[in-house]
């Protein structure tokens, strides 16, 4: 059975383009321009799904963006608004909340047990006994509303855009269009945002004259340069008019989030028609006057054959005309203005059948249309601080006052003819443009580096708009019977009464307890009815009850749009192409991609200990420090002393935060009188740069120090192993004789033909080693030269894993691995580096008090007594035979050098003495013993190898 009407003048369909799709597996055909819902309705289907709690069959209610009853599954995508989403060929559409089928839904039995799903059932039902909760959860999950999520669905493309329009207009009805045109003609850049697919608002389903007016307005807006965004929603207004816009029709992306900083915001969201509350008000075939007007005029769909119309306003009257024109017989007009009322509707499971009036008359019908008044969607004004006030004479809320950079116009602020609305919009647009000029002037004047503002600030335009009238409207919220108030959350007026009786009688409490207004329509259809029913239950007026505060979002926004593109930056050293060509297994360390190993980390360790290895350590944070006060800065930020470091010297230091916790560590070299090169941990490079700048700018602004990050400007290569001196000597004229260039010294010179290289002797791996820093343009060539020149020496690259093993063999701790956010500097056990006799350093007082109390854990080296077992990192250390945690393993590896497992651990002081036996709880539940070592270094504790 087709409900499609003959082609009409104002329809948005292209009847030459037929689109095939399926509805619950059945093949149907719609037209280009149809929404999914209008196409289904045109094919004679009028039940779209079942309600979330009671599983009652539901038909379309409003047939616009806000329709709570036409949520469907489309292909892999759940929860699609069928009354908004445009039909596309090949869509597979199915109903939600139905099992096993839309017609025979087993859970509809809930209708019988509805008394168990009363107000606040979320908080009351299935709560006790707690032991049964897993069972309850399993059952409840089957009742959860919504469609099917396909976890294999690929991540869609989402995007973001930043915009700085002078004026954003939210709402593309006549008033919004008029405001946008006026603002643009006054010189403002204007963005007009309309959440439906076409601008024009209610003009689009109005008379021929109305439609002609809409066409003219759209042409004028385009001519004035207004940027019109359709199928887009202003979802939020935040401080200083930061406006979030969800754009759903941008080519190539699922959804785009526009972050617009507007100088003024015009809110022209219009009004939204309220449903009426009565017994049977959620039967399929009960809908608003706007719904039938849209179905007939925009989509050429006949909504029924025999209608009863409850009309309290001109929208109801216009719907009657539309229905007659569409060939629907009008069984009865119930004129609310003369006091006529309906009491209830009865029907079959799938359709309204009769309406009962308050005089007892029963009228047969298959369509019941209600036109009972309007809700003002003041959300965006609420977000700006407005608290709307109820006007009983007009039976709706009105804005009471927003900040002066947020202006409202159109149906939100009053009633009038089209001419009145356009005039109010025009005045609002001019006011918005005038205020935007002043805001722009102030922004420019506040920017020190911008072109200086010479002109005086323009006058701030006062609001001299003529207010719109407020037309009287009867207060029609609920009939003498109870019905559904919130369709998407399945909350009835009876639920609201019982919640109020239970004490949830403030509107904000009622909302949270019953979840009324908290569904996908975000209260646009439900809030005022909720307030009205609560007022009835309390025996008070709506004005006394007040309303809830609408918060962002205006309409739901996808998480994908908030996340935007996935574009985490990836950092690599200039040697990375070589690593990739030589089968390095990559590891992600922060943003850096580094070689973890080249096939066998243990072999890399052995080769480095026996011959020579090279590792790319470019991610090491590097800061070039220059100026007469660098030594004072180093003394302030490191715990140890720096004033006597000679030129050519290198020193290791620990930095603390002001709470005494270890922040970073590294070596710093003195290259010249006033010139130092500092290294930080790879992950701490950015933090320490900020940390230094903060101290220099806020606490020591008189010190003269320049800080320049050179992490990627220098390629860093560590050459380690007994043959490292021999290898480097083949590439440089720098005197490498240990007397001329001892351990912990730095030299500058030419390496592999590259001038201005820095090389220093340090010992992270425990081997004789030279760390060279080469201007990064020469990094890859230097790496390749080292490998070529050292072939006969057995030079091989080693990766991060081999370096970590060797540093653990050597007992060097890693900040953030062996320390954590509670580890104050004494935890490192490096007391000689904590110079309490200095006047000041970051964290000094806390470190001093910690040392005085002696009450802190400490890092020790330990070895499992069974050297074949490697305890997991973070394995707990327990007091023997108990479950008292006294420490944890912080690093553990199998040592290729010692051929046994080795660890660093943090333990309570009483367990720190060499020889102490520790009980370690493995993840599998077994306990093993380990012994605390005398030195942190498991290997070469005297450091003979690295000093050689």
């Amino acid at each position: 059975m087709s409900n499609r009407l003959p082609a009409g003048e104002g329809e948005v369909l292209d009847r030459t383009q037929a689109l095939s799709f399926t509805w619950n597996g059945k093949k149907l055909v719609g037209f280009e321009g149809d929404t999914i819902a209008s196409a289904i309705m045109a094919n004679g289907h009028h039940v779209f799904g079942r309600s979330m709690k009671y599983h009652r069959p539901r038909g379309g209610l409003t047939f616009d963006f806000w329709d709570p009853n036409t949520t469907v599954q489309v292909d892999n995508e759940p929860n699609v608004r069928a009354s908004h989403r445009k039909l596309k060929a090949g869509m597979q559409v199915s109903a939600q909340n139905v099992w096993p089928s839309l017609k025979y839904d087993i859970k509809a039995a809930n209708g019988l047990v509805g008394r168990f799903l009363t107000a606040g059932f979320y908080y009351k039902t299935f709560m006790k006994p707690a032991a049964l909760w897993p069972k309850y959860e399993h059952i409840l999950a089957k009742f959860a509303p919504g469609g099917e999520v396909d976890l294999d669905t690929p991540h869609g493309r989402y995007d973001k855009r930043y915009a700085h329009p002078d004026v954003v207009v939210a709402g593309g009805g006549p008033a919004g269009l008029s405001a946008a045109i006026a603002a643009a003609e006054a010189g403002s850049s204007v963005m007009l945002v309309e959440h439906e697919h076409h601008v024009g608002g209610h003009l689009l389903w109005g008379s021929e004259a109305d439609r002609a007016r809409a066409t003219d307005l759209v042409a004028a807006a385009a001519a004035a340069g207004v940027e019109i965004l359709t199928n887009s929603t202003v979802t939020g207004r935040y401080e200083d008019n930061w406006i979030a816009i969800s754009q759903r029709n941008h080519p190539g992306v699922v959804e785009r989030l526009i972050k617009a900083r507007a100088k003024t915001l015009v809110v022209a969201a219009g009004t939204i028609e309220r449903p009426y509350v009565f017994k049977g008000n959620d039967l399929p075939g009960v809908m608003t006057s706007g719904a039938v007007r849209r179905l007939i005029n925009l989509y050429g769909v006949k909504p029924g054959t025999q209608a009863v119309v409850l009309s309290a306003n001109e929208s109801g009257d216009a719907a009657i005309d539309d229905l007659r024109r569409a060939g629907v017989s009008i069984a009865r007009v119930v004129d609310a203005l003369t006091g006529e009322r309906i009491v209830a509707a009865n029907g079959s499971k799938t359709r309204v059948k009769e309406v009962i009036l308050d005089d007892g008359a029963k009228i047969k019908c298959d369509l019941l249309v209600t036109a009972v008044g309007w809700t003002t969607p003041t959300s965006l004004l609420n977000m700006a601080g407005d608290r709307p006030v109820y006007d009983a004479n007009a039976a709706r809320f009105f804005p009471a006052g927003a900040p002066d950079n947020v202006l409202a116009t159109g149906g939100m602020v009053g009633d009038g003819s089209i001419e009145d609305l356009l005039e109010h919009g025009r005045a609002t647009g001019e006011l918005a443009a005038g205020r935007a000029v002043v805001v722009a002037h102030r922004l420019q004047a506040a920017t020190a580096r911008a072109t200086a503002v010479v002109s005086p600030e323009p006058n701030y335009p006062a609001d001299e708009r003529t207010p719109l009238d407020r037309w009287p409207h009867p207060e029609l919220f609920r009939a003498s019977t109870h019905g559904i108030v919130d369709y998407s959350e399945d909350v009835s007026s009876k639920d609201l009464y019982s919640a109020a009786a239970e004490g949830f009688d403030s509107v904000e409490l009622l909302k949270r307890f019953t979840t009324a207004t908290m569904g996908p329509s975000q209260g646009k259809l439900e809030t005022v009815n909720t307030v009205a029913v609560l007022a009835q239950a309390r025996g008070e007026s709506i004005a006394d009850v007040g309303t809830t505060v609408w918060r962002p979002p205006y309409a739901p926004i996808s998480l994908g749009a908030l996340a935007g593109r996935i574009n985490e930056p990836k950092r690599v050293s200039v040697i990375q192409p070589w690593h990739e060509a030589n089968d390095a297994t990559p590891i992600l360390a922060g943003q850096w991609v580094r070689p973890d190993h080249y096939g066998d980390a243990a072999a890399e360790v052995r080769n480095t200990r026996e011959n020579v290895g090279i590792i790319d350590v470019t991610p090491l944070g590097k800061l070039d420090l220059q100026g007469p006060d660098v030594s004072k800065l180093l003394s302030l930020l490191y715990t140890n002393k720096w004033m006597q470091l000679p030129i050519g010297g290198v020193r290791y230091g620990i930095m603390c935060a002001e709470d005494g916790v270890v922040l970073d560590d590294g070596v710093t070299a003195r290259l010249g009188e006033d010139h130092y090169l500092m290294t930080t941990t790879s992950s701490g490079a950015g933090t320490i740069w900020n940390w230094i700048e903060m101290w220099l700018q806020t606490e020591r602004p008189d010190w003269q120090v320049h800080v320049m990050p050179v992490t990627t400007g220098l390629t860093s290569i560590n050459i380690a192993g007994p043959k490292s001196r021999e290898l480097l000597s083949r590439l440089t004229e720098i005197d490498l004789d240990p007397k001329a260039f001892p351990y912990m010294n730095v030299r500058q010179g030419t390496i592999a033909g590259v001038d201005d290289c820095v090389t220093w002797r340090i010992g992270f791996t425990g081997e004789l080693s030279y760390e060279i820093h080469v201007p990064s343009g020469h990094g890859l060539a230097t790496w390749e030269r080292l490998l070529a020149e050292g072939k006969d020496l057995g030079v091989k690259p080693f990766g991060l894993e081999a370096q970590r093993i060797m540093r653990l063999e050597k007992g060097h701790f890693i900040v953030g691995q062996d320390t954590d956010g509670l580890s104050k500097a004494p935890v490192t056990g490096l007391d000689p580096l904590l110079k309490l006799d200095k006047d000041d350093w970051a964290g000094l007082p806390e470190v001093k008090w910690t040392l005085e109390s002696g009450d802190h854990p400490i890092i020790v080296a330990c070895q499992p007594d069974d050297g074949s077992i490697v305890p997991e990192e973070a394995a707990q250390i327990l007091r023997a035979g108990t479950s008292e945690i006294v420490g944890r393993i912080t690093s553990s590896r199998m040592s290729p050098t010692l051929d046994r497992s080795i660890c660093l651990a943090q333990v309570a002081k009483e367990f720190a003495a060499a020889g102490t036996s520790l009980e370690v709880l493995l993840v599998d539940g077994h306990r093993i013993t380990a012994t605390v070592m005398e030195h942190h270094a498991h290997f070469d504790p005297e450091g003979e190898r690295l000093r050689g």
Partner: protein
Amino acid sequence: MLLVPCPNCGPRNAGDLSYNGESHARPDPKTCTPEEWRTYLYLRDNPSGWLVENWYCSSGCRKHFKIERHTLTGELRSAILPGSKPGLTKGETK
């Protein structure tokens, strides 16, 4: 999102800057008591009204500055770069 007037770059999205919280003077580490130091580290006045706080123009000019913010209205005023004028300290208002 607040529009924060960096004294150097002009008004910028708060997300372009780092918020470093209430402005507190640093006690002398040699002479302070644990109470004084931990007040500096952890205790915040969080007044309902004007508050002097630290911001860092981390995605812009990398300047640290102090600004007064009204915690009820979000209004911002009197941005000051340290070193350019005597810095405001806790409790002071301009």
